[in-house]
């Protein structure tokens, strides 16, 4: 595995990750304000790509078109796509979700799934089941060379565009009046309303922004792969939703982080051999041992109440972690009822078990160091990453404040 190879995979990973992020932001923002998974969002993304492609086909742009006109058509396609897709997003909320706002959450979820099916079928009815082909004349074909690696200009464009859009979104959410209204609404809709915020307007705005981002994502994907199909948005939507959950649903920074992790994991995962992964497990093991030997005992000891703080007691707690499983198992088998000692013993045994598993996998992977994942493993890898992270952080990487409102 060469450096060039890794760099190439990283760029591909970032490109896909950015597109996931453009979609994931829509999922996460809507979840933030409505606690609703907008299942139709993947289709909104597809529709965005279809509208852009259709506009370009309609303009008849081809290789002989002068550059200035090409740029003009490109801008036209972008604007038409953003406007119509935003309108679609706005309408979905009005038609499928708002009337059900007072109903149970499962009702809105069913409505979302229904909306997704309706949109897919509409695409088939209008455009047919065959993929729509993006006119290649407007797709930038250049390459740039970085450290001896040829990178498609389009990849750079996708990454830069996405970064700019995310910066814009961060500014809207953080710096503007509407952004404040969005944050207030997502924390406590009822209270926000009583503080003078028009929550319906805010929700519409959220759908419009999310759909605009998705439409740009759809356009970029259509350019990247050259075509789109009526069901492209299903898998992209699912991946983006996964990324949003991974990052902590409801948190916009989480959506971006989750998407990038997912995109990178998919691409690295394919090229990476087990020998490389083994090193990850080694690092995991080092971290695990650090926690078991230094951090966890220190934290536990600090829980001992002032009046019980004897050196023997502290030593007992520490030795459970450091000499686990011997002392810890002895404690668990003994009749001692002291809660802190018992909880610590159980904790120590669990940490020890985790470290043994990590070590086992490290050895296993080193022994099969040459094995590689095939590209059909891509989806499996991304969901494996999700499972692994959610096991340690059920609320997602940045998602500790979802349940905050009470």
């Amino acid at each position: 595995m060469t450096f060039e190879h890794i760099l190439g995979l990283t760029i591909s990973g970032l490109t896909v990750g950015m597109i996931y992020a453009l979609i994931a932001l829509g999922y996460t923002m809507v979840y933030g304000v409505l606690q609703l998974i907008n299942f139709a969002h993947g289709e909104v993304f597809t529709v965005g790509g279809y509208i852009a492609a259709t506009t370009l086909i309609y303009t008849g742009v081809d290789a002989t078109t002068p550059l200035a006109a090409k740029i003009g058509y490109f801008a036209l396609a972008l604007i038409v796509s953003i406007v119509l897709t935003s309108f679609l997003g706005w309408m979905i909320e009005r038609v499928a979700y708002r009337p059900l706002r007072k109903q149970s959450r499962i009702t809105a979820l069913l409505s979302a799934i229904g909306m997704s099916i309706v949109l897919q079928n509409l695409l088939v009815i209008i455009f047919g089941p065959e993929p729509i082909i993006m006119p290649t004349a407007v797709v930038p074909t250049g390459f740039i060379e970085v450290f001896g690696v040829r990178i498609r200009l389009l990849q750079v464009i996708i990454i830069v565009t996405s970064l700019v859009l995310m910066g814009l979104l961060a500014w809207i959410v953080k710096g503007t009046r509407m952004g404040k209204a969005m944050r207030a609404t997502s924390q406590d809709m009822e209270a926000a309303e009583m503080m003078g915020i028009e929550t319906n307007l805010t929700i519409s705005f959220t759908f419009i922004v999310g759909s605009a981002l998705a439409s740009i994502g759809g356009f970029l994907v259509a350019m990247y792969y050259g075509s789109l199909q009526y069901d492209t948005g299903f898998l992209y939507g699912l991946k983006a939703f996964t990324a949003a959950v991974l990052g902590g649903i409801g948190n916009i920074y989480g959506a971006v982080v989750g998407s990038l992790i997912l995109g990178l994991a998919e691409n690295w995962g394919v090229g990476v051999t087990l020998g490389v992964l083994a090193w990850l497990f080694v690092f995991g093991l080092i971290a695990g041992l650090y926690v078991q030997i230094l951090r966890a005992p220190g934290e536990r000891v600090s829980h001992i109440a002032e009046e019980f703080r004897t050196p023997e007691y502290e030593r007992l707690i520490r030795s459970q972690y450091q000499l686990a499983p011997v002392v810890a198992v002895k404690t668990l088998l003994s009749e001692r009822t002291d809660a802190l000692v018992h909880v610590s013993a159980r904790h120590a045994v669990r940490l020890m078990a985790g470290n043994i598993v990590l070590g086992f996998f490290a050895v296993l992977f080193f022994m099969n160091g040459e094995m590689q994942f095939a590209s059909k493993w891509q989806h499996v890898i991304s969901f494996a990453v999700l499972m692994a992270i959610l096991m340690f952080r059920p609320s997602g990487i940045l998602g500790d404040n979802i349940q905050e409102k009470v």
Partner: protein
Amino acid sequence: MSDVVLDVHSATKTFGGLKAVNDLSFQIHAGEIVSLIGPNGSGKTTTFNLISGVYEPDSGDVLLRGESIAGLRPDQVYARGISRTFQMLRLFSNMSVMENVLVGMHGRTQANIIDCMFHTPRMRREEEVCVEKARAILAQFPGRFPESRHDQPASSLSYANRRRLEIARALAGEPKLLLLDEPVAGMNPMESMEVMQQIRDLKEAGHTILMIEHDMKVIMGASDRVIAMDHGVKLAEGAPKDVANDPAVVEAYLGRRGADTAS
């Protein structure tokens, strides 16, 4: 009378079969502090919810300065000039202290989406004015919200300061009527007295206040008038001393307490 700010006119609200508020009528005059008292579950918070637009009365009407506000959405009621605090704190805890107050001004600001997108000079000016106003409001709580705390998340404040911040946020709407739902709940006696003084200062500054309170010291010390209710019905209304000694009120409290100890 011409200085009637709020007129609740035989309002009724039922939940299932339960009449949480039953044919309730009262008026609040400009510059008054009125306390709404009653045993737990007597319908006080529901009355607030009727006034602030969370519920629409099943029958009856709520008038603000002579105009009906029954059936308006909460944000519309807020824009007409009624802001409130909550029995259970409902601050935007992920936002900074300053932002919480700014959200309270939301309905008052004029900047529209276009202004926001392009950050027009008009909006920037307005933003500066808002921040200045918010500073002034926070400064009404001396020593509680120094500049250094303005950018900290609301969740980092002490409990008592969070209750104060809720009042500050409500003041940001420049209300004609301020509704305070148990403003000193959970505070120690010293903090309660401080907040009571603050409520009196608000009255001095020209505010009209309707508050729900259980703390007798605060009720006696701050209110001009007391309205007692039980089972959604008004039991008594008048000067604090008279209401506190009203046989029906005493009976309601004692009766309820008797029932509580029995169960």
